[in-house]
């Protein structure tokens, strides 16, 4: 079980906003996270990964505390070792496709499997600048998977993929997530694209209701969760995504 209860101030043109999240995620679940631009989705993922420190709250994975300021616990990203697919891909310009994966793991067999899943076998010597947007995005996903994380955080991971590639990749990823028992949080504005991935059996899709103005708690599999947005939250500011 992953338990997250955090508060984090967001920088914005129109003064301070506060991201408040209080949620539980069963291990092995796949959850879609969505909401208006600038509401703190990326910040939320970064808080879990240890890349951003919340002002208050706690993060617990199974019985291990990742963030517990009262006890002085704040595990580094290296120790949390979550897989993270960045919205801007964050590929290393100096490394080829193969070097990206070799940087993350020494398991040659696993690397070959990943290359097959991402259909990048023929592009192993290419650097990111010579890859299309879709290929770059697939590489970002493969690199995050390379460390075989127990928790995978994906920020708009399929936005640059064509429908055919998206369907094929999502099918492969679904099998992989099940095989590795991965817990996955996916930020995506497009719920349609996740239909084959976020299944009713493992998926939790509570944020759509909770982000709405009439947000209310609801029970899901015995779990209760809520995400609070500030009272003055109206339309998102496009510029705010720069801070996410």
């Amino acid at each position, binding site marked *: 079980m992953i338990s997250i209860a955090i508060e984090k101030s967001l920088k914005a043109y129109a003064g301070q906003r506060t991201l408040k999240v209080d949620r539980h995620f069963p291990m092995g679940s796949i959850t879609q996270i969505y909401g208006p631009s600038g509401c703190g989705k990326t910040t939320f993922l970064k808080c879990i990964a240890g890349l951003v420190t919340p002002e208050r709250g706690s993060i617990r994975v199974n019985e291990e505390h990742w963030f517990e300021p009262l006890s002085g616990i704040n595990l580094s990203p*290296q120790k949390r070792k979550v897989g993270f697919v960045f919205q801007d891909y*964050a590929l290393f310009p100096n490394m080829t496709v193969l070097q990206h994966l070799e940087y993350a793991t020494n398991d040659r067999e696993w690397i070959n499997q990943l290359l097959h899943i991402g259909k990048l076998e023929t592009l192993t010597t290419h650097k990111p600048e010579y890859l299309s947007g879709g290929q770059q995005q697939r590489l970002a996903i493969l690199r995050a998977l390379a460390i075989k994380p127990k928790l995978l955080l994906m920020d708009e991971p399929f936005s640059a993929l064509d429908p055919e590639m998206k369907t094929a990749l999502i099918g492969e990823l679904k099998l992989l997530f099940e095989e590795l028992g991965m817990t996955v949080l996916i930020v995506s504005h497009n719920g349609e694209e996740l239909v084959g991935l976020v299944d009713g059996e493992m998926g939790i899709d509570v944020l759509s209701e909770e982000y709405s103005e009439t947000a209310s708690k609801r029970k899901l599999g015995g779990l209760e969760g809520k995400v609070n947005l500030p009272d003055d939250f109206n339309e998102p500011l496009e510029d705010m995504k720069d801070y996410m």
Partner: protein
Amino acid sequence: MTDLSPIWLTLKLAGITTLLLLIAGLPVAWWLSKGRSVFKTIIEAVITMPLVLPPSVLGFYLLLAFSPQRGVGKWLNDVFGLRFVFSFQGLVLASFIYSMPFMIGPIKSALQQLPASLAQASYTLGKGKRETFLKVLLPNIKPSLLTAMVLTFAHTLGEFGVVLMIGGNIPNVTRVASIAVYDSVERMDYASANTYSLILFSITFVMVITVFLYNKYQAKSPLE
């Protein structure tokens, strides 16, 4: 026949200064590139001072600070036998301080321009800060690194005031090319002055044009 020892001495000084500044400048530039604080701003201002300070002023204070008759200079002389006034190591120290902004400035700017997500991605893969710096950040600022090294080397070649103040004009010890030019003109030996000047001009021109050509293929401003 013109005595070429000032040229060799200058190249040796520029090479050592560049190497030392590269080793010391990289971590400092990295530190300065991360976040902002009043303390960092003050340190950065101190590092940048040689850009605007008259070289003779810097040389004068170094001369006072490292005089073997008093203070730090006396202590270094007595305890370690180190003498920075009118010695080659004094020139290295002065050049190190004087050329610091040329090494640290371009590297710091380049590191700041890299997306923060690059280092973050590396951290999530379990890599530490040092490994991230060496394998991810550093290889992606190569053009700026080259620019910083060339600017530092070329700037050291052209030092005059600060070198004269702390080193004087001792043949084979502190008589670098720029001082040799001045000295030759003083002695009305225009041929030697021309030889030194032409060599310095040629070396500097070749270095700068190399950086411009290299950075042209990296689609970056040569002075970044």
